[in-house]
């Protein structure tokens, strides 16, 4: 197996991006990274810059203002990388589908600049930290 993908699976460093979320999923992500859920045993570490990240945890329905910024952050993440759409809004705009500011869910925004992006979906409103861990582990083992 490709050594790059194998080492990516064993040591995914995450960066959190809020693309217009109500902050509910953001609070759950911050909860996830506390010592109680111990994600360091999977090698997951929170980094402060997309340049050092392997996985982008994107929350929120993509608003018009956030769409371009999200694409810029994705471009600044060195490939290979994985995008996790966290929450019902990020997976498919959730309850905000007809909003005036909504430019489509996160995967449409990312696929606009990179059709081959690897995107994983973790639904929930908000998803529990256990659900997020399970989603991340499943996505990484399917790579």
């Amino acid at each position, binding site marked *: 197996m490709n050594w790059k993908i194998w080492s990516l699976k064993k040591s995914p460093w995450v960066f959190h991006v809020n693309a217009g979320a109500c902050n509910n999923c953001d609070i759950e992500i911050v909860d996830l990274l506390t010592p109680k859920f111990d994600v360091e045993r999977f090698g997951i570490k929170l980094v402060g810059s997309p340049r050092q990240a392997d996985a982008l945890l994107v929350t929120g329905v993509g*608003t*018009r*203002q956030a769409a371009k910024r999200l694409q810029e952050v994705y471009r600044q993440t060195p490939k290979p990388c994985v995008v996790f759409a966290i929450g019902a809004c990020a997976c498919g705009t959730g309850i905000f589908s007809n909003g*005036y*500011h909504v430019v489509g869910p996160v995967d449409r925004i990312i696929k606009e600049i990179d059709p081959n992006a690897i995107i994983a979906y973790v639904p929930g409103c908000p998803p529990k930290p256990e659900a997020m861990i399970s989603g991340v582990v499943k996505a990484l083992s399917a790579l």
Partner: protein
Amino acid sequence: MRDAYCDDNRCEIMNQEELNNKLLEIKDKLTGIERKSDKRIYLLCEVENSYAVNKFLFEDVGCRFVIATGIDSDNCFEVLYHYSYDETGCVITIKAFIRDRQKPAIQSLTPFLPAAEWIEREIHDVLGIDFKNHPNLRRLILADDWPAGVYPLRKDLS
């Protein structure tokens, strides 16, 4: 908390009785006073008097400004200013009716209430109500490439 903006000779501390009486001082500028409950008062006025009523409530009565709301009603626009009188826990709302639907405009409160600057900007952004004498009426929450002149929270927008 009150001492920060209320100095001694400006406003004294009142209980609910005295507050109700004090509000009657400005009765001539209002078109109505509604009391939904003991601690919830609505002062209705037209757009020309809104500046004076707000100034009275903030400076003479000594209420704390909480937030402002903009409403697109059937035949008019409304701008609501919510104040809280912390001594008794009473919430007072000033409802200013803007009858002109073509070019809605109202006096901005920023000369004596700088805290109202951003909420007035937001109301202008999504409802299109013009605030006169506002120091900085730029776009606040809409996207940079949103077309100017399109106000998303208006009822007649398709």
